[in-house]
């Protein structure tokens, strides 16, 4: 199988630019990246139909190797339609995201943040150790600091106790 070098270079450029844009946080750029990736994949499909210069149409009597393979073109057409629909939908939700939050960036999941921030499950140990160290401390300047810590620890322990 012969492959057109221009198509391969073009595909590589599309993929490189597409992946670069995909890694951005701005949704519009992500979308542009997806479009480039889709086009890169289409060019790859086209390249897989063999080299150029052959008859695009089938005329009766023509030898099989003298006319171009039309299946990849059918596949590309289908893929283009799908990419088009997805692009339109993406534009829709990007616009919606802009209307709702006036922002065009990928946002963090608040629940993820909450789970990451939740206190460790050894809340009792943490609270007790903090309370113990204050008893052995003679230093007056530390107590103001330490009296804060155990009280907040105790509150969190109570809350978690309730949660059980």
């Amino acid at each position, binding site marked *: *199988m012969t492959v057109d070098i221009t198509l391969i270079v073009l595909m590589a450029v599309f993929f490189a630019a597409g992946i670069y844009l995909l890694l951005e946080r701005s949704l519009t750029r*992500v979308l542009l990246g997806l479009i480039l990736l889709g086009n890169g994949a289409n060019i790859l*499909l086209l390249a897989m139909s063999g080299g150029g210069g052959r008859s695009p149409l089938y005329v009766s009597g023509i030898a099989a190797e003298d006319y171009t393979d039309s299946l990849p073109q059918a596949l590309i057409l289908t893929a283009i339609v799908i990419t088009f629909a*997805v692009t339109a939908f993406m534009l829709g939700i990007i616009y*919606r995201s802009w209307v*709702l939050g006036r922002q065009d960036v*990928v946002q963090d999941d608040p*629940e993820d943040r909450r*789970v990451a921030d939740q206190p460790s499950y050894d809340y009792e140990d943490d609270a007790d150790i903090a309370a113990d160290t204050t008893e052995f401390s003679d230093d007056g300047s530390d107590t103001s600091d330490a009296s804060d810590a155990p009280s907040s620890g105790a509150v969190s322990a109570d809350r978690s106790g*309730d949660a059980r």
Partner: protein
Amino acid sequence: MIAADLAPLAVVLPFLGAAVTFLLIRHSRAQRAVSITTLSVTLLIEVVMLLAAPAAGTHAVKLGGWEPPFGIVLVVDQFSALMLVVSSAVSLSVLIYAAGQGMADGDEDGPVSIFHPTYLILVAGVSNAFLTGDLFNLYVGFEILLTASYVLMTLGGTAPRIRAGVTYVVVSVVSSMLFLIAIAMIYGATGTVNMADLAVKLEDVDPATQMVLHLMLLVAFGIKAAVFPLSFWLPDSYPTAPAPVTAVFAGLLTKVGVYAMVRVETLLFPGDRINSLLMVVALLTMVVGILGALAQSEIKRLLSFTLVSHIGYMVFGLAISTRIGLGAAVYYVAHHITVQTSLFLVTGLIERRGGTANMDRLGGLARLSPLLGVLFFLPAMNLAGIPPFSGFLGKLGLIQAGVDLGTPLAYLLVAGGVATSLLTLLVMARVWNRAFWRSPADADDPDPILLASKADGTSIGTSRHVTGEDTGKFAGKDPVTLLPRTMTGPTIGLVVLGLALTVLAGPLFALSDDAAQEMLDRTPYIEAVLGPGADR
């Protein structure tokens, strides 16, 4: 004319139903009737196909009369027939549940009129992906179901759903691109996209090239199936969708990915070249997934993590790739679709009854609604794999296959599987203790609806006639039926289907065992599509 010739109807009927419901977009009652009828008829046809499948063997339907490998074929074998029946049964239950929710809330003219057509298109896409014998048609099937799922995921267009939808859409599109690139490369290497033809021709391809094509396909399907480390997107996006949508996504979409992986492993690239890799991946998926579930307090997110974790069991069976391992994986897929969907449906009910799905804020549900307790408890124990439920039987089959294989990695996988099962039990017990057993007063900041009482001081049951001030989400909508029969009914149906998988485990295991043998054999599939003797 045999039963398997009806296969195209499994795709065409939902599409027709989608067209009709789209025309009826202003008549929600008619929409409901049409979509439920369509899915019931589809299910009936698929049951007929499944019952005929063991006797008829693998059968290919040539669409438009085009001879393979040039035209598209739909292939019905025992595996695809089983998947079709389970998926349609589950999607029908979820549809009734969703329709019941709409009726109970009086959303007769709500913004969800787009739900029915989109849902039917989703079902058509899933059926197409299960049936197709053509790699590019599989891509199209994936795109049909994914595009429908984008719409369902962002239904209503609220800020959290848009946020989750963006992640979901981008990840899905990237995986589809990988799949498309893989198809292009496979076409370049072999000159065909017919799966049976590929099965014959890929053997002649250089082994290194084969490996590249194989891994490309597995990565693309791994993202869809949410296999670790490609599973990060799932717990982020699924929980924000409406409860019925999350339920059907959790039940079906990842399993379509698993189904595609099974076909790749058995039909296109047989052999055990990457089985060790798959075993490691299965182990990590199981363990990392369930550890993620331990950290959650939101029940929907927690279930999403158990979903990821239990995908690991299916990859486990696939990685063992002996007849018993693959058979157990097939059985496990059927079990998991049913159980995971019922758990998500029950969570939807919990959210209605308790006002939230955050278990820190829930309590006393077992007392407030014993039915809800039973409906959660049975699938939860089933998921954890407590004997005699189907989850136990599936895991037992997998463990037996692992022990039979007897390599150190297989034993490690068995140990990981048992540990994951225990951890699942721990996770489910935590939900049970908090949401169902403790007193509602012990909850952190409980929703008013949880503590609401009737005028005479008794706690409200399932319907809501509440006095006093309320700020719950149903405020101003009194009286609201909290647990309408149209929603509990389908949930009960699915839970019972999950139990039926246990009762019918004998014939079902025999069926999945046969299906596994057929797939490992490959000849029936190839000969059904290309004609006798095509397998050389």
